[in-house]
């Protein structure tokens, strides 16, 4: 990497600071890239962008215009990346991929089906997050993958699923140069986790020219990329700046061209000065969750009382600065399968009081409301408003702040928080996938310990069912109906991912909420 870095030097040095040219872009972000290998244990979310920009997958998603400006990936359209074409067998169990014959790794070697097989074997074998994500698409064991010949790769499924092909387009199943990886694998480390952690070996649109952990990462274009249209930018510098105030000053002055993931407040204030993209995060809902393990919340009237007491509008203004989409005050009748959807609830204290009065707890009760310190920017204002509102219907709320390191254990693993805020978002954009994680008993994001037999059945039935199956829509609607009536999660609003640009265009939102630098251009 030192050698590759040296080649950047003359170019950047000779560049006058004011005219950085149209082929280099500087992006600041508050998150830290801690690994160049997504499959490693402990790799941070911000590092997923390396998987996106430096590696190819077999397929990718299309592009569409996004709400809130700019573009977004399009879940409905699957496009080729390394695969030239693919075929699904009649029974949906066998997927055959033809690789692009001209696809090459950075070292010039042809991308073969054996590389795909090795990379998929790795993703299902290393355990932890990559294996869980692969499993969502029905990819569990190495024996499901076969390299038939150099350019033909076959996946055999245990059962057909509509989630398999989209799951091949998420960052996890990327294709690694298996020859380079194997040269650097050891007996203790057969998947070359130590090597690829620092040194990517892929075929993607960008190579890593320099990486200084905790400071910056410099992408350099791979001119031989065949996975899509050649990117406009030669170099993209990702610079880590932890303080949001500093990031804002930098992008506002135009010294950097993009600030990725800025707070809602800054997005709202910068929107009329520079370009701000606030894309509602698909399949993601900020919720207030009453835990069924806490006795008063087993009473449906109490949960409804809360749903009518929550000051939705104030929360949306104070916590989200109106970035994102409101999710209250909708129709009770469910006639489409869009998710997240507006609930039938709205702020009405009289209704809330009436529900409390007929519940088993007319005199109210005391309950702690737990929030994570890591997510305090939206959780704290929300919690204060909820505390105030619930006080009016006799529920005394005490706010409990939990350190970030402890949060996941308490809320998702032990599921022991009586009343808490939660923000699950599903990568695969189908309602059944959201319900699978957030409403099924025992599943990770079902932090309310909710169990409903009908929901269990409906989720199992719809999870792998094609969305154009005539049975699909009625089942999904029934799922919505139950979940919104029983309220184990009270939807507050759909959050947004905010990006400020000052001299850059072509920004595209992705469900993984990391920056895809490939479509970016300088202006």
């Amino acid at each position, binding site marked *: 990497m030192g050698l590759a870095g040296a080649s950047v030097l003359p170019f*950047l040095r000779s560049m006058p600071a004011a005219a950085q040219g149209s082929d280099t872009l500087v992006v600041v972000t508050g998150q830290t890239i801690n690994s160049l290998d997504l499959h490693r244990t402990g*790799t941070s979310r911000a590092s997923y962008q390396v998987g996106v920009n430096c590696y190819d997958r077999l397929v990718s998603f299309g592009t569409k215009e996004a709400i809130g400006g700019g573009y977004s990936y399009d879940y409905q359209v699957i496009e080729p990346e390394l695969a030239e074409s693919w075929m699904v067998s009649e029974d949906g169990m066998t997927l055959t991929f033809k690789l692009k014959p001209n696809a090459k790794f950075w070292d010039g070697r042809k991308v073969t089906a054996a590389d795909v097989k090795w990379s998929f074997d790795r993703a299902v074998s290393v*355990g932890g*997050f990559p*294996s*869980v994500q692969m499993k969502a698409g029905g990819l569990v064991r190495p024996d499901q993958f076969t390299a038939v010949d150099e350019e033909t790769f076959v996946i055999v499924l245990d059962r057909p699923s509509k989630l398999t092909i989209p799951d091949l387009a998420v960052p996890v199943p990327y294709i690694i140069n298996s020859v380079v990886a194997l040269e650097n694998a050891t007996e203790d480390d057969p998947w070359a986790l130590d090597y690829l952690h620092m040194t990517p070996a892929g075929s993607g649109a960008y190579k890593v020219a320099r990486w200084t952990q905790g*400071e910056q990462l410099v992408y350099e274009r791979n001119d031989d990329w065949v996975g899509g249209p050649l990117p406009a930018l030669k170099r993209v510098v990702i610079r880590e700046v*932890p303080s949001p105030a500093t990031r804002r000053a930098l992008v506002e002055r135009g010294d950097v061209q993009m600030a990725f993931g800025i707070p809602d407040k800054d997005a709202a204030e910068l929107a009329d000065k520079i370009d701000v993209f606030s894309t509602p995060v698909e399949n993601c809902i900020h919720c207030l969750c009453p835990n069924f393990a806490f006795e008063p919340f087993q009473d449906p009237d109490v949960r409804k009382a809360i749903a009518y007491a929550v000051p939705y509008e104030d929360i949306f203004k104070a916590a989200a600065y109106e970035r994102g989409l409101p999710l209250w005050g909708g129709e009770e009748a469910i006639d489409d399968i869009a998710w997240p959807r507006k609930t039938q609830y709205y702020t009405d204290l009289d209704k809330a009081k009436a529900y409390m009065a007929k519940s088993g707890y007319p005199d109210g009760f005391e309950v702690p409301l737990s929030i994570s310190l890591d997510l305090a920017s939206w959780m704290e204002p929300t919690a204060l408003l909820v505390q105030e509102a619930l006080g009016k219907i006799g529920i005394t709320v005490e706010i409990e702040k939990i350190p970030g*390191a402890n949060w996941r254990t308490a809320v998702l693993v032990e599921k022991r928080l009586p009343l808490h805020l939660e923000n699950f978002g599903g990568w695969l954009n189908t309602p059944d996938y959201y319900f699978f994680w957030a409403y099924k008993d025992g599943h990770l994001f079902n932090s309310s310990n909710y169990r409903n037999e009908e929901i269990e059945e409906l989720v199992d039935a719809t999870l792998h069912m094609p969305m154009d199956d005539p049975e699909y829509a009625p089942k999904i609607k029934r799922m919505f109906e139950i979940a919104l009536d029983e309220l184990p999660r009270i939807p507050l609003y759909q959050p947004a991912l905010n990006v400020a640009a000052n001299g850059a265009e072509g920004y595209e939102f992705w469900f993984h909420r990391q920056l895809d630098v490939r479509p970016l251009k300088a202006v």
Partner: protein
Amino acid sequence: MLSKAPRLRAILLRVAQAVPVVFGVIVISFLLTRALPGDPAVYFAGVMADEKSIEETRVALGLDKPMLQQFFIYVGDLAHGDLGQSVSTGRAVATDLAKRLPASLELTLSALLLAIAIAVPLGVLAATRPGTWVDHLCRVVVTAGVSLPTFFTGILLIYIFYYLLGIAPSPLGRLDFIYLEPEHITGFYLIDAALVGDWETWFGALKQLMLPAITLALFTLAPIARMTRAAMLTALSAEFIRTARAAGLSSKRVLYGYAFRNALLPVVTTLGMVFSFALGANVLVEKVFAWPGIGSYAVEALVVSDYAAVQGFVLAMALLFVTLNLVIDLLYAVIDPRIGFVSR
């Protein structure tokens, strides 16, 4: 042989005395990190982890073993100079510290030098002219210095000098992205760039260093100025000064030769304290100026319960503190020959 070199012997004795302290630090930091809330296996297993993958992560991190066994493995590794692997950065903790400690030291030392350059003369002037405008200025600076939090001063300085006036460079860490970091020799960019004669990078690094160093200096100069003033006042009212004055020595000689030298002892003590305090406390400055220092490293490690990294940080700070105290003790003897460096 040692009896012939009493100073060397005393130093060795001091180092030997530090051993139980360091061992205590090792035990306490090990126990404290384990007592932290939060489960690293859950954290590092990732967002979608199920119980099986959490368990796999736990085994991979070696956290399934009994605590005593974990401790012996840790101490055994330490004996080989191995501080362990940081899970979040995926590198050896020693590598991380070697990279980040110089960044923090460079910032803290520059800030401290700046603070000394301002605070000591200010303190001396305030003490020699009590009640005048210099004394009041000293009081105002000291009060402002302690009462303004560093992140506030930092953001204010960025706002004025970078955002409004545009004379400060982009607050983007140790070097703007157009420069390459100098070859690693000491890890101090100013020193490394000077050693290889790369003056362009040297100026680049200096420009980036200015604002954060000023921010930190504003914070650290308060105790130094305060202590200098108080120590000078005490020294000036001492009898030997009256004697010196009565003997007709020049006021300059009295002030700097006798009073100041005597006042230096408490000032040096304060310096040592301020230095170690600032090194740990500059995490806020690091965050504001995107400075890749040891403070933000430790905080990030703490947030994700990255045991090896936290332990490595605590140990490094303990060693630094022990060394610093030793140096200060040696300085005492240099400043005031009456303090014999005898082993006690």
